[in-house]
């Protein structure tokens, strides 16, 4: 794993919440801390969704981002396959490679038989797998994952996690994970930032 120079310093205040942290130059960074510490807000700052945030990127803003919010937010009118394909369409990939990679990703997160289902027709864990696939699909430079494995059943969580982590590591992305799960830290060998 090589450094990708996605370091940044972040400052954000909203109401009672004050965030100040430096994002280190590491492939995996974990944001931890108790409920309400601002993990989700920190991810939103990095995603560019908080206009009040001051984010200084050491090497310019990331050219592309992948994002899995805590509530997943699969597009309700699209099938799971189309949800995964959406981030590649937005990134401007060509049709043939989108089709090919969508099939690969459906297999990667074990939801190929559900490809044509709509989000409301599948379980929370299956939605989270789809959201993960959608976030990593366009091989973004910066990945922002909020509690990415929390809804996946215990029996397959470790398997899905190791596949996703391997995929991200190979893609060369910087990945920031907000998590409560110590296993997430262990598997990713992440530098952790503790928000309080």
């Amino acid at each position: 794993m090589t450094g990708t120079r996605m370091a940044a310093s972040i400052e954000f205040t909203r109401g009672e919440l004050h965030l100040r942290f430096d994002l280190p130059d590491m492939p995996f960074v974990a944001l931890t801390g108790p409920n309400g510490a601002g993990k989700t807000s920190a991810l939103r700052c990095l995603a560019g969704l908080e206009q009040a945030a001051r984010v200084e990127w050491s090497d310019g803003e990331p050219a592309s981002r992948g994002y899995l919010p805590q509530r997943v937010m699969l597009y309700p009118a699209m099938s799971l396959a189309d949800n995964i394909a959406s981030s590649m369409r937005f990134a401007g990939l060509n049709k043939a490679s989108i089709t090919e990679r969508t099939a690969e990703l459906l297999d990667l997160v074990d939801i190929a038989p559900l490809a044509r289902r709509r989000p409301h027709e599948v379980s929370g864990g299956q939605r989270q797998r789809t959201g993960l696939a959608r976030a990593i699909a366009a091989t973004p430079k910066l990945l922002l994952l909020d509690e990415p494995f929390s809804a996946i059943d215990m029996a397959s969580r470790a398997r899905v996690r190791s596949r996703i982590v391997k995929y991200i590591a190979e893609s060369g992305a910087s990945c920031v994970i907000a998590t409560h799960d110590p296993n997430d830290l262990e598997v990713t060998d992440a530098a952790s930032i503790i928000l309080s």
Partner: protein
Amino acid sequence: MTIRPPRWVVAIAAAPVIVLGAPLFALLWRLPWSDLGGALRSEAAKSALGLSLITSLSATVLCVLFGLPLAWLLSTGTGVMTRVIRALCLLPIVLPPVVGGVALLLAFGRRGVVGQWLADLGIQLSFSTAGVILAQFFVSLPFFVLSVEAALRQMDIEFAEVAHVHGASPARVFTAVTVPSIAPAIAAGSVLAWARALGEFGATVTFAGSLQGRTQTLPLAVFNLLESDPADAVVLSAVLVVLAVAVIALLRDRWFGVLRSEVQR
């Protein structure tokens, strides 16, 4: 258990049901069943029916084309301008259609504020088929815009945020993510707008007149026939009733579905 209303409440509730039901019943009662085809084949009826379909569908298409961007703008705005534009959008619902027709005449008529410029270009809207469409667009746009704006406001903004983070432009977010998600509201708004356009009378007769083949739509034809040929007027009215029933059937799930979910909550 359901606590049922007492008999005297049932008696009071029955009165409006009679008021609503009796006209429909009378219309069907007086329908000249043996001569339905004859009435529909008359020149006035055929041209009115065709004209009504063409103009009301055109007005609906215009409502979707212009109403979607307008609803998007209104749903994101918070300022004074937004409130002014929304009030303007609501106006045709509250305004008597005849007054709307007079206002249209003053704006787009041959000597109107805008109309005189159009006249110089050789375009005349008043007393033309295009004028019928304009009048229908004027009265039906609010129904589409309000329906769609409400859906846009109810939509969770996090869907759009995800698409934005993944690199979609605002227009792309709207067309690829937002519009498909609110498709039911767009469909319902279109049906409402179409129904309003189809039934339009006051603004049309004032702004476009009642010229057979050019501006005489179904409701205007009914009004005209009432004097000369009442039986035919009844038949054409029945056509509008059938269309109205179809609209209710189309929107049934949407309207009654809302009622059901509200009761369950």
